[in-house]
Structure formats: structure tokens, C-alpha cells
């Protein structure tokens, strides 16, 4: 039997170990990616690598700008659809829907989160791609990628937003209604602003999932490395580019793919820190009494 005293004194070290583990893992991944990518940055040159528009590894041309644009294009496209849809659905679930409908919809949304991305990709390839082909182009396109990502990120945005709308103190709603605001005005002017940091967190999680998605994007975007002219053009995302080529890559080509990984890493960090700033600015609203 371990004495209570012993546990009390040492528990904090155990917790410290647990906490450092995640940091160590993160640092290890970052250092490894950076180290493997470094030769590409040195040999190709930072600016040429990031702003180069031609990617032909077999001819030693490593420009990843088309992939950066591809990643941003599918993600922005997805967010244009997913944010309004997601917040709308969250409001419905939190405020409008009767209990029974909520009981039906909520688990459906949660199951959507758990569907593997390859299934989303398959559905996109066999359902969405042919539909877009009818509009124009080959069907493998930014539009197809955005639609698939919308479906993939919606559940995250909905469930996080719903939770944060529900977490708004009851007295806010009561206060608004007591002042004569109708239900819609209360939702629009009181509940959503009060829940905005949580909603934003959901959106950021969604963006994170969208920008890092590889499998589904490989299956529906066509993977052509070019700067797209329209949403119907094929494109390649950063994550998809790594996954498509890493199997065959060696030498400088492999380093260049790790450099793509570094760029992806930085991109996600920029988005996250941007989100942190916005959330901090929006944060106090929820705590005001």
C-alpha cells in the first residue's frame, strides 16, 4: 500500500510527465520534419520553393505555390459553405428544434464525425465528381474538394457551436426576452455573439481538419499541380501532394516533400494563432455578468 503522503508529493511529477509527453512528441515531429526538409530549402532556395509555380520533381523543379493555393482554395470554398450551414444547424439544434428532432439529429451529426475520410472521398469520387463534370471540366476539381470538405467539417462546426450556444448563461436569454426582443432577435443579437468564441473554436477545428485532409482530397481534386483559373479546375493540396508522392520519392524530391510538410505546419500554426488572438479578443463577452 502506497502512503497517501507519497502519492500527494509525487502526483504532480506524474502529471508533469504526462504533460511533457505531448510537448516532446510535438517537438520531435517539428524537428524531424524541419531537418528532413532543410536540404530542399537550402538547395532550391526558400523563395523559389515557396513562390515557384512549377512542380516537376523528376526535372528538379520544386515550386509549391500551386499546392498552397490549392489547399487554401478548397478550404476557403468549404468554409464559405460550412460556416453558415453549421451555425444555422447549431442554432436549430440548440434553440429551435423540439426535443424529439434534436434527439434524432444530434447522434446523426456525431456519427458524421466518425466516418473515415476515405469514405467521404469515395462518395465524392463516385457522386460529386460526375455531377461537377456535367457543369464543365473533368469533375475532379476545387469545387469537388470543397463540397467533400464541407461535408467533413460540418459536423465538427455544428457540435462545437451547439455546445457553446447552450453554454451561454440562461439569464442572457431571459434578459433579452424580458426586454422585449423576440426569439430570433435574441438568437442573432445575444446568443450567437455571446457564444462566438466557442463557435470560432469549432470553425478553427474545422479549418484544421480541412487543410490537413489528404485521402479524400487525393480522390476528388485530380492532383494536377497548376495554379487554377476556376473552381472547376483540378488542383492539388499540400497534404494530398505529400501523400501522393512520398511513396516514390527519394533524395531531393523526398526533402522537398518534407519542405511541403513544413509549409503545411507553418500554415496551420498561422491559422491557429490567428484564431487564438481573435478568441482572446472575443472571449470576455461570455464572462461578463
Amino acid at each position, binding site marked *: 500500500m*502506497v502512503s497517501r503522503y507519497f*502519492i500527494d508529493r509525487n502526483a504532480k511529477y*506524474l502529471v508533469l510527465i504526462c504533460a511533457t509527453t505531448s510537448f516532446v512528441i510535438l517537438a520531435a515531429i517539428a524537428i524531424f520534419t524541419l531537418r528532413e526538409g532543410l536540404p530542399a530549402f537550402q538547395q532550391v532556395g526558400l523563395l523559389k520553393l515557396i513562390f515557384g509555380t512549377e512542380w*516537376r*520533381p523528376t526535372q528538379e523543379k520544386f515550386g509549391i505555390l500551386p499546392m498552397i493555393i490549392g489547399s487554401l482554395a478548397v478550404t476557403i470554398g468549404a468554409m464559405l459553405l460550412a460556416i453558415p450551414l453549421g451555425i444555422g444547424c447549431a442554432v436549430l439544434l440548440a434553440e429551435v428544434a423540439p426535443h424529439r428532432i434534436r434527439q434524432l439529429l444530434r447522434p446523426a451529426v456525431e456519427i458524421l464525425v466518425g466516418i473515415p475520410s476515405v469514405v467521404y472521398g469515395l462518395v465524392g469520387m463516385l457522386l460529386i465528381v460526375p455531377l461537377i463534370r456535367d457543369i464543365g471540366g473533368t469533375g*475532379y476539381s476545387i469545387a469537388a474538394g470543397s463540397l467533400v470538405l464541407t461535408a467533413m467539417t460540418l459536423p465538427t462546426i455544428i457540435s462545437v457551436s451547439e455546445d457553446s450556444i447552450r453554454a451561454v448563461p440562461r439569464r442572457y436569454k431571459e434578459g433579452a426576452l424580458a426586454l422585449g426582443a423576440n426569439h430570433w432577435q435574441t438568437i442573432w443579437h445575444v446568443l450567437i455573439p455571446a457564444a462566438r468564441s466557442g463557435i470560432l473554436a469549432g470553425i478553427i477545428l474545422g479549418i484544421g481538419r480541412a487543410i490537413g485532409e489528404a485521402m479524400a482530397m487525393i480522390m476528388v481534386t485530380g492532383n494536377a499541380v497548376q495554379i487554377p483559373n476556376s473552381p472547376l479546375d483540378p488542383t492539388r493540396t499540400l497534404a494530398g501532394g505529400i501523400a501522393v508522392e512520398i*511513396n*516514390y520519392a527519394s533524395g531531393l524530391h523526398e526533402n522537398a516533400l518534407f519542405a511541403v510538410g513544413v509549409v503545411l505546419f507553418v500554415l496551420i500554426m498561422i491559422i491557429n494563432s490567428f484564431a487564438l488572438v481573435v478568441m482572446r479578443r472575443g472571449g470576455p463577452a461570455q464572462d461578463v455578468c
Partner: protein
Amino acid sequence: MQFVKKWKLFILPIFAVSFLAASALLGCAGGASNTITEAGSTTVQPLAEKLASAFKAKNPDVNIVIQGGGSGVGIKSVNDGTVDIGASSRELTASDPPLVKHLLARDGIAIIVPLSNPVSGLTIEQVRVIFAGNITNWSQVGGPDKGIDVVAREEGSGTRTAFEEMVMGKNALIKADAILQPSNGAVKTAVSSDPQAIGFISFGYIDSSVKALAINGVAATEPNAKNGSYPIVRPLYFLTKTQPTGLVKDFIDFCLGSEGQSIVAKEGYIPSM
């Protein structure tokens, strides 16, 4: 008691992690000497699996691990010693490490279109200009008035490299906006589901879902590839770091011998002899 329980909660994941780490270490060190490992080209993979099971039937105590990954992985892993045998579906180039090549088989590359496309043959020049993006409508090569969707493999793929060498030549490049799919199977799925598509896959992957075009008037069949009249044929190699010895030599000899070569023929590839 409350505290003890919580304390155990912390201990559990630590145990789990160290257990996993230990088993991973043991797993690495536990490879017995009668195991052969092979990795590389996904074109060679199904063939290598058949050859391995035939070899195992004769040598029951031998274990052969066959993995895919692509020609690049095959070349890299055999060079750094991760596997005994690497598989490549393309010629080695000056930038590849020096390895010992064992010509296992030859393989035709078929140019495929969906079944609904009435075009049944092209010349190799027509294939080149289509993939380079200079011809963009099927009516220019005797088909319906529809655009052409070019489907190709990603850079570095053995099949793509072989296609580029044999069809595109030195001066033409596959157009930049071609749809790229990461495997033979994915190219086949993409072509069969798009009525305007054209793509290329290994002979071993042809099935009833797509139509293989005749090239220069020669049908894409195994006998035509064997007698040299079909123009797009590439080598499939087993690679070793040095001249093979022991068990690895036995396996390669088996594959290159009459028994192995009859399996090569049965699987739809062209025997190397």
C-alpha cells in the same frame, strides 16, 4: 482509497506506453533468419505474392514478406538494407544507387478508355500529343465531339516513368493539368467512371471495366507484347544490394527459373527469357 485509484489511473497509460515500446523493439529484433523481405513497385507486388506463395509451398519453413510502396521505395529500402529484395517497374537511372538487377519479367502498359468510347485504336504519336495536351477533343482522333480528360500517374511512379520514356520521349511532357491518380487501380477507376477519359495502366490490371486501345494497329494483348509487336513494354526488376546469397539467392533463382517464369506467364506478364 480514492487517492490510490487516481494514482493507478496515471500509472496505467505509462505502463501501456512502455509495453508498446518494448514490443516494438522486440518485434524489430525478432526477425528470424529464414525470413525474406521484399518491397517496392505496386506493379510487381501481385506477381511477387504469387511467386512467394509458390516458393513457400516448396519451403514451408521460409517466411516471405511482400510489401508495396512503389519503385522508389523498393530502390531506397534495398539500398539502405531495410529489405532483402527491392522491386522496380522502371529502368534504374544515373541518380539511383548502384544495385544488382534481376530481370524478373516484362510488362506491357495499356492505354485505356472507358467502354463507352467508340475509339478502338490510336497511333503512338496520337497518344503522345493527347497526353502532351496538343489534342484535346476526341473528334480529332476519330471519336465523338467531346473533350479529352487525360488521367496519368503521379511523378516518380514507375509506370509513369516507363510511359514517359517509351511514349512521351525526351521532348514532350505530360500536360500539367492532367488528372493524377496514385495507383494503377485508381487510374482504372477514374477512367472507367469518366466517359471522356484516357489513361495508362499495367497489363496485369486490365479487366472488363475498361477498354485497352490497340497501339499502331496492334492489340494490347500478352502475345503481342511477347513477340515484340506491341510497342509499350517495360522491364520489371528484383533488386539486391550485392550479389544475392543463401535464401535470397534461392528465392531469386526460383523466380527466374522455369517454375517461376511459368507463374510470371500465368499472371499476365511476359517471362524474361
